[in-house]
């Protein structure tokens, strides 16, 4: 009997709920970093162009208002469903994390399990952020005054190069939970765990355009995000020189920027799923209404 050869998969982009190739036609190999000889291509992934990024921003913008207007309860159920689906592909995720060559099987397992549990945690935040961070303001006048927490809008996320699953989810999910739409750039060395998340998104009923995932070259995409006037916020775990380019983009349209240390350990710290996770991706809206007969 002849040995069955493997099907080497080409992972595509995830834009507006569809899985297109890059309009540029470019693909890049994803390497098995556990392979000491260094060269073995595990798979291929599309390499997004600036045009793909602009398309993703358009899809994200089109989806955002409706997503933000949906109830926190609904968003929570959808993110919970995502956790269920990720749990179903747990072994595949562990293998993909292990292929990054950074951790052995048992640490890869821990990373995946903590990541899925953190997904649950963010599911729970959807209908609680207002209660914890917002609330009634006791003003000195005849007014009912309260502050509610709203989504900033369209958010670009640059996930860390390490921690390819938990880093990606820890930075992308808070934005989605609070009603933003996201264009997420996974680890460029090990994008597969994030691409598995993308494949789960439609089945979890995340509406098209709410999560977009673009694999590609960071040095190409960072300046495009920084200059894009329809990106409202950026969450990024990138090296200082790229962080600076993103910060300079603030001058463009006052986009909000949250920078996360690229050396950060994304495991076991409550702060990752605390209200501080929602910096840059939420706005406080204070509403006053007169009170009187």
């Amino acid at each position, binding site marked *: 009997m002849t040995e069955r050869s493997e099907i080497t998969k080409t992972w595509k982009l995830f834009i507006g709920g569809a899985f297109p190739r890059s309009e540029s036609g470019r693909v890049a190999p994803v390497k098995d970093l556990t392979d000491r000889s260094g060269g073995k291509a595990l798979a291929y992934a599309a390499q997004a162009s600036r045009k793909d990024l602009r398309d993703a921003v358009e899809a994200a913008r089109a989806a955002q208002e409706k997503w933000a*207007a949906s109830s926190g309860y609904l968003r929570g159920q959808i993110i919970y469903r995502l956790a269920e689906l990720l749990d179903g592909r747990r072994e595949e995720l562990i293998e993909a994390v292990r292929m990054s060559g950074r951790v052995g099987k048992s640490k890869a397992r821990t990373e995946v399990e903590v990541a899925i549990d953190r997904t649950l945690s963010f599911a729970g935040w959807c209908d609680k952020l207002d209660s914890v*961070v917002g609330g009634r*303001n*006791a*003003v*000195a*006048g005849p*007014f009912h*005054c309260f*502050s509610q927490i709203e989504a*900033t809008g369209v958010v670009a996320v640059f996930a860390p190069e390490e921690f390819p699953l938990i880093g990606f989810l820890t930075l992308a999910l808070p934005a989605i939970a609070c009603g933003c739409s996201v264009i997420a750039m996974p680890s460029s060395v090990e994008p597969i765990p994030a691409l598995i998340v993308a494949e789960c998104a439609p089945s979890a009923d995340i509406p098209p355009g709410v999560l977009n995932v673009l694999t590609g070259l960071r040095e190409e995409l960072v300046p495009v995000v920084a200059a894009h006037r329809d990106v*409202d916020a950026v969450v990024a775990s990138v090296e*200082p020189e790229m*962080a*600076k380019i993103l*910060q*300079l983009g*603030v*001058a463009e*349209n*006052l986009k*909000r920027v949250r920078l996360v240390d690229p050396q950060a350990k994304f495991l076991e*710290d*409550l*702060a990752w799923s*605390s*209200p501080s996770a929602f910096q840059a991706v939420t*706005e*406080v*809206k*204070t*509403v*006053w*209404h*007169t009170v009187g007969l």
Partner: protein
Amino acid sequence: MTTPSTNWDYAPAPESTKVEIKTQYGLFIDGAFREPRSGRSIETINPATESSLSRIAEADAADVNLAVVAARKALKNWRRVPALERAKYMYRIARRIQERARELAVLETMDNGKPIRESRDEDVPQAAAHFFHHAGWCDKLRWACPTSNGSAPEPIGVCGQIIPWNFPLMMAAWKIAPALACGNTVVLKPAETTSLTALRLAEILQEIDLPPGVVNIITGAGETGRELIAHGDVDKIAFTGSTDVGRAIASTVAGTKKRLTLELGGKSPNIIFADAAIDQAVEGIVSSIWANQGQVCCAGSRLLVEESVAEEVIEKLRLRMRSLRVGDPLDKNTDVGAINSRAQLDRIESFIKLGVAEGAQRHDVSDVALPSKGFWCKPCFFTEVQPAHTIAREEIFGPVLAVMTFRTPDEAVARANNTMYGLSAGIWTSRGSKAYEVARQIKAGVIWCNTFNQFDPAAPFGGYRESGFGREGGRSGLSAYCA
């Protein structure tokens, strides 16, 4: 219908002006007033008379550095002062502001040009309230801004704060109070045309024995501000001012570890639905655009009126505008005072000319006699305004209102959001459910339903989009000063 006469003559009712002003002020650094190293000073004038009030120091790079060094040195002890002891200093500041309220209000009006009614009833009480409110936060930070190990949050460090000329003392309080409550130290730069009340606040800080260096107040113009922003030992920049300057600051700060909050410009919509209480709405329009001569970042400078009541609202507005008293800001009957500076007056006038040139129809109070000296702009509004007109898009920062109409709530929201700004909005309707739904759909940080221009230290204030980021006031404002 005959138009009622609005030519009521009031007897002058000037506020007493016995406020001692020195001929020259130094920089307040490390607890003492000192001559600037720069050797330079700037004249500060009363915009209602153009007469000189005093000369203020102009800090250069060396002066800025001294202030930052003093703040850094003071931080070491200040951050370790027990929370309730920190609170006591702040309560005392609030008390002294209340006790010296009349003096501060008169000085504010002389330096800024705003009506004494506003400085007396709004600016100064709000400044005191900000210190009083934030004093109470000092020992509650661990619950307001929790950390993952349950301890109280650490301060950010040395905060460089730059404030505008439209609410000089109030802005100083908005900036300093939360910073101190969280254990930070401060270098504050007031605007060069309105530094006198901040310097008076420095005297109060001396009176209450605030430890030297905890708050430093350095005067100067744009160059002084740039030196402060670029200083390598400042941990946080908080700025209130124009969007253009905010962009420049963001570029300067990029690539550094400095934290940044920006409270910038606006072109805020004020929406009047047909089911609103129209007379109250007209009063709301008055306070939204003509209070403080319209020199308010959150001014309701775009009036959106439902078509079916547009004629009625415009007629009532015209009538109401005629009863506004423009003139001596120190007169207790004055509604509209002087524009803060010649430069600002020129800017407002150029917008008014553009409004006419682009085809909008100007309505103003033609028969008002203005003082011969000083910077004056009669309140006015424009009808026949198209959304593309400059006066409907750009922040004027003056008593100039652009009136437009709409037919449906959806159209009102679309027009309201048709701006790159997002600071505030007004909504006038007698239906609560409608007010809250429109409030939800508008992209702005502060929404006033059946009221306008209300502020309170407990209520977070700040913008969406190009109106900046970060909030001031309330719990949200505190988090901007905790590491």
